[in-house]
């Protein structure tokens, strides 16, 4: 690992040659901001050598034009005023690099999300604000310095946490790409939920057999080390070089350290446990779907309950999901509609005469699961739709059987009382309670309790912690094969970095000026990433920030009473210049 020291501050403002590009964004900006006026107003600003507008600055053609401008005019700073830096910072850093300009001499100014889109009613004011923002961007660029990315070597080794179907498949996938794997499972046996399943939808494969096949595959691969009855209890280091502590055995047992480049978290889910009395839970004959599925899987003929043949079953859907009956879980659990109709079809096969009543809200047998729903209806299942304002009620009758009362939306809101032998509560996938792990990994979870990805659309297995990936149902409810797919996607994401052997990190990190540091320690407590440590030479003590560990959040900078810390890319000089530029512009 190389840590690059660069001087803080920059050359004198008057020495710069800056190019400024203001984007129309195809009307997104120029419909509300007079971009030509912005250009006219900043053209005279000091150090601005090139000032232009462009219809889509991000287009290939304009990128080429910027490259040509940078080279022809020997620009040493670049400002693009367009959209959010989240979208195109890397685009234009790339443009700068292609032109031979250090990418960190680039400043992105957001005049779309932060200007045109929020001031659609006042072109004049929006234009003035855009001008001020662009001026601030120029102000920052006057003080930028060339920075070099941090190159971090990565270890070709991944830690997989969780030995369910996603973790097992991920371990095999990693090994097959040539990476070493350590698989950690909290239980003594591998296989997670799927090992206890019989027939699964939609291909009617047996869960136990799938898991056996994966375990055999794991055993065949010498690159995989399996630790069962083990838990991850510590994490140190940074992306590419994590040192993970794994405790094998009961709390108090010794830990071993595993050095890995990345971590795949595949810790799965917990089944929702209904509260006592929730849709009759606790009454004799009221069971959850996982328990019921186990009964059906193990049956060879008609179901029996307490020595009596089961003649009818009612399924109450969405228990623990979608706020049904006032429950806390607001999310849809995705897998359960299809799982329930599959179980019903399976049961009809064992006992064609059985009565099955499905009390549902919306039947979510999405995609290719739809034929299962059709098959269930053909096999005799009856479907009744209830409104969440009028949830079904489950009671025990004097004869010991159960009655489910429901107002059916499909038959003119008729209230029906259905006598049944069993009531199956179609319970949600709940987030797993693993607070310890969350604390160790610093993984954020969403309001639903599942781990949060960086972007639910485009980056579903990455997290804000570089090199820590999430796979399977720990990210959100999934079917078994969807969990496998996300496990393999985490393999891909790991391999995309680890196969190369190194990764580059933004050098936008905090830096301590040792001479000014008084070793007060305030910054250590401010750092959420444990990236700051004290060092000493003789009796002189000062703080040192690990460039690989620092995320550039800037949290330490204002904490320092001596102003001994500066944040590269957002130095005091740069930020002060931005503020001064903003202040200069007349309203």
């Amino acid at each position, binding site marked *: 690992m190389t840590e690059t020291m660069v001087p803080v501050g920059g050359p004198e403002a008057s020495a710069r040659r800056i190019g400024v590009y203001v984007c129309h964004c195809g009307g997104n900006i120029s419909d509300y901001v007079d971009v030509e006026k912005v250009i006219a107003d900043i053209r005279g600003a000091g150090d601005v050598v090139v000032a232009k507008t462009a219809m889509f600055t991000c287009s290939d053609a304009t990128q080429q034009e910027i490259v040509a401008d940078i080279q022809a005019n020997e620009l040493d700073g670049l400002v693009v005023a367009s959209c959010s830096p989240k979208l195109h910072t890397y685009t234009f850093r790339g443009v700068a690099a292609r032109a031979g300009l250090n990418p960190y001499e680039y400043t992105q100014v957001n005049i779309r999300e932060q200007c045109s889109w929020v001031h659609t009613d006042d072109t004049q004011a929006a234009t003035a604000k855009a001008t001020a923002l662009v001026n601030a961007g120029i102000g920052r660029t006057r003080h930028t310095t060339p920075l070099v990315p941090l190159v971090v070597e990565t270890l070709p080794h991944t830690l997989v946490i969780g030995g369910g179907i996603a973790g097992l498949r991920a371990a095999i996938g990693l090994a097959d790409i040539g990476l070493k794997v350590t698989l950690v499972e909290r239980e003594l046996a591998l296989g997670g939920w799927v090992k206890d399943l019989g027939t699964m939808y939609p291909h009617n494969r047996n869960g136990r057999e799938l898991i056996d096949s994966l375990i055999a595959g794991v055993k065949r691969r010498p690159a995989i080390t399996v630790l069962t009855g083990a838990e991850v209890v510590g994490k140190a280091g940074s992306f590419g070089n994590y040192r993970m502590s794994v405790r094998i055995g009961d709390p108090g047992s010794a830990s071993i350290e595993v050095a890995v480049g990345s971590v795949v978290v595949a810790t799965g889910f917990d089944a929702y446990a209904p509260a006592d009395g929730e849709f009759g839970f606790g009454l004799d004959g009221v069971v959850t779907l996982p328990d019921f599925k186990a009964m059906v899987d193990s049956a060879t003929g008609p179901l029996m309950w307490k020595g009596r043949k089961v003649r009818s079953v009612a399924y109450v859907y969405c228990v623990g999901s979608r706020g049904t009956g006032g429950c806390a879980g607001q999310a849809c659990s995705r897998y359960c509609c299809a799982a329930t109709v599959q179980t019903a079809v399976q049961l009809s096969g064992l006992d064609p005469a059985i009565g099955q009543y499905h009390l549902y809200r*919306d039947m979510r047998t999405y995609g290719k699961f739809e034929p299962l729903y059709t098959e269930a209806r053909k096999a005799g299942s009856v479907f009744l739709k209830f409104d969440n304002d009028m949830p079904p009620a489950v009671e025990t009758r004097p004869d010991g059987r159960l009655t489910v009362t429901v107002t059916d939306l499909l038959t003119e809101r008729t209230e029906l009382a259905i006598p049944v032998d069993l009531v199956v509560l179609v319970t949600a996938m709940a987030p797993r309670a693993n607070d310890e792990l969350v604390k160790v990994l610093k993984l954020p979870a969403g309001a639903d309790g599942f781990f949060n990805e960086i972007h639910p*659309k485009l980056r579903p297995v990455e997290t804000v912690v570089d090199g820590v990936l999430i796979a399977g149902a720990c990210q959100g409810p999934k079917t078994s094969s969807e969990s496998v797919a996300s496990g393999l*996607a985490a393999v891909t994401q790991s391999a995309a970095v680890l196969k190369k052997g190194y990764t580059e990190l933004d050098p936008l990190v905090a830096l301590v000026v040792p001479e000014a540091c008084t070793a007060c320690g305030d910054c250590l407590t401010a750092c959420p990433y444990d990236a700051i440590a004290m060092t000493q030479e003789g009796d002189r003590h000062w703080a040192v920030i690990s460039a690989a560990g620092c995320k550039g959040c800037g949290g330490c900078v204002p904490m320092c009473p001596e102003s001994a810390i500066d944040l590269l890319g957002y130095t005091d000089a740069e930020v002060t210049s931005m503020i001064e530029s903003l202040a200069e512009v007349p309203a």
Partner: protein
Amino acid sequence: MTAMNYDVLVVGAGIGGMESALKLGDMGYKVLLVEKEASVGGKMILLSKVFPTLDCASCISTPKMASTIHHPNITALTYARVDGIRRSPDGAFHATVTKKARHVDIDACTGCQKCETACTVAVPDEFNADLVARRAAHITFPQAVPKKAVISREGSSPCSFACPAGIQAHGYVSLIRSGLNEQAYRLVLDATPLVGTLGRACYAPCEGECTRGSLEGTLPIRRLKRYASDAHEASGNGTGIEIAAPNGKRVAIVGSGPTGLTAAWQLARLGYSVRILEAAPVAGGFLRLGIPSYRLPEAVVERDIDNVRELGVEIETGVTVRDLPALKAQGFDAVLVATGTHKSQGLGVPGEDRLGVLGGTDFLRSVKLGHAPNLTGKRVVVVGGGNVAMDTARTARRLGAASVTVAYRRGRDEMPAHHVEAADAEKEGVGFALQVAPVEVTGDAAGAVNGLRCQRMRLGAADASGRGRPEPIPGSEHVIACDVIVAAIGMRPDTSAFGTQLATDQGGRLVADATSRQTALSYVFAAGDAVHGPTDITRAVGEGRRAAHMINRWLTGGMLAGFDDRLPVVDKAAVLARQKAYALRPGTPDGSTLEAAPADFRELEAPLTDAEATAGASRCIDCGVCSECNECVAACPVDGCIDLRARDESFEAQVGAVVVSTGFKLFPADLKPEYGWGRFRNVITGMQMDRLLAPTRPFNTILRPGDGKLPERIAYILCTGSRDEQVGNPLCSRFCCMYSVKQNQLLMGALPLADVTVHYMDIRAPGKRYDEFYEQAKSMGANYIKGRVADISETPTGDLVLTYEDIENGGGVVKAEYDLVVLAVGVQPNHDAEQLFEVGELAPDAWGWVGEPEEDLNPGATSIPGVFVAGAASGAKDIADSILHAGAAVAQVAAHLETAKTGAGKVTVPA
């Protein structure tokens, strides 16, 4: 074909393909990514925002698109296709890849869109779901990556393809439609100097091929050419034709007919010094000496010939060339013989030498030269059924003949004359004696003609021409009394002057190479009717162009080939199928006024008025898409960037693994006729609504297409084409509920006063934060009604009445009126991927999607080892699921590549 090696071929650059290519590239594998459209991005880039985050789809797509195209390990080919993939025994794959001609040099194009502004052809814009039009020269959408133009050419338009002169008929029609009359003139001028001439006297094979002919009638293509010529004449502009610098070489052209004039024109522009040698006292050949003035005024021909003279071509008249080597000796580097067919064939019956028997071409020639015979009061019989016979008969009418009768041995339908010519002759009082053949010219004692003895004929079995062979009916002889007989039964070339210098066939025609028109004397080329026998002036023009091309090739040391560079003609049925229906427009009225007894040689056909020209040209449906009008070439600031002659190029790629990410098709909503899509203009699809909502939207606001009104009552019909056995799709399409919920929210934001109602079966919001997103739409005020809509009808104001059963509120049949109806169309498999492999090799699932037989443990693995599927090609998936699926496929691709030798990378899925 050159072979290229890559680790992986990825077919399709939608979100699944881009993700696959990027991740494989990041791992260090060399990837060939082939996308059939002109930009990467697939369907996602077309969307407004994405659920449930409401991110702008283009904003989150474009960085991925740019990374894909700039990735050092990815070779991304857009506007390309994979023709087929073969598996070799060693497990590698051999793919044939074709780079479709985009007619734009992708390295030179700056994306300035000047070609797009200049283009004269508008076609439905598929990237705006056909809501608006785009140009043939275009950049697919504003955020296209690469942002490079493409010129859509689906083939030659039938009119242009049919032109024997090689004139871009579609081109000048589309220029006139755009008001660019001078450019239209110049486009024709690029092929031939005879613009005014062809605008009048061409038999217009283009019009016979016009696709519009099967609707209300063909476009007046020939008259549009005359219109452009007249407009040019009126403008007083010069030709503006560019001439190359003199190249020091000289070419002699024998004959100044359409072949000679066109060849001279082409060669002079290439820098040759050209001299035309003409035996007749005037230049123009048949144009000037054969075609009557009422069809082609002399002044028009003279003007066209002046075009040639303006290039410095010398035309010497009254010179009969007999000695070709002498021309060579005089310093001509090449000679073109284009002397045409000027000799009338005799009747070949007794008495044909009597006074009063004339040859057809001789007759027309003497009239054109001012030596018309006096026919006043004479009875004239014209023998023959060709165009010369019709010209002769109609000319005789104008010279005061008492009667004119055309005697022809077959029937009207078999006459070789253009049917319009025969009909016009009849309207001008010419009589027809059909199925008669001359036997003898009878005469009086003074030797003058007094009749034509004929026998009746009947048509027997078909002969080589496909027409019935005339056979005499015994005992049917009779005499047609007459004073003058004109024999117009054929013409032959008069090539006797060249003696033994050039070979001739038994018809007297010159022998020349079928492609190059080169004769046995290498510096002599021969073309036109002198080689082929009588054809028509348009073919003659084409001959002139061909001869000029070959002579230039010969003199510059090139291969004598490459003249015909037309694309194959488009299929007219496919052209018509582009649109559901066509509005029939008024046809263009015939411009000729014919009199029963015409007295003079005034031009018969009136020019098109401006309105007729615009209306006529505007009926064009742009069969080949690009019209070859060349405006883009003129507008492009980079020389040589646009090349309409570019052709598809193929190469072979050898790869270790294949990812098919060919995506899906949207359900064609017209398969649910009860919903009226395609008939009711205010019924649109979900994709059309997404375009209306997108930042690059066509109207910059949300309006209903029928009348531009802001919709206040908007209905959605979910499951259009999904969960529907009637249309053969029992599956759920997974993302239509969610995109509808997204659109509901965006609409309520954009049109706060609008009511949004959704007719649904089940709301399927089964992903992370999806159900919360649905609840949010409900809380914003969207109204969700369970039940399928049975029928939609349209009110006179374009509003729509939906009939449905209100299941949750008593179950009665309800009718509700809306301003705009959005059909939440689902998906269908496209069979693109299957067709890449041997039949049956890439096994589909039960519904036609790419099958994943091991989905439980190896999602993305297909029936072929080494071939993986990513994204919605294996079944409907939203963006997030496509990304995960691509990630799964990529992990297995890498495992396959790493373990291909050992075979260790598979996970066994228990049966």
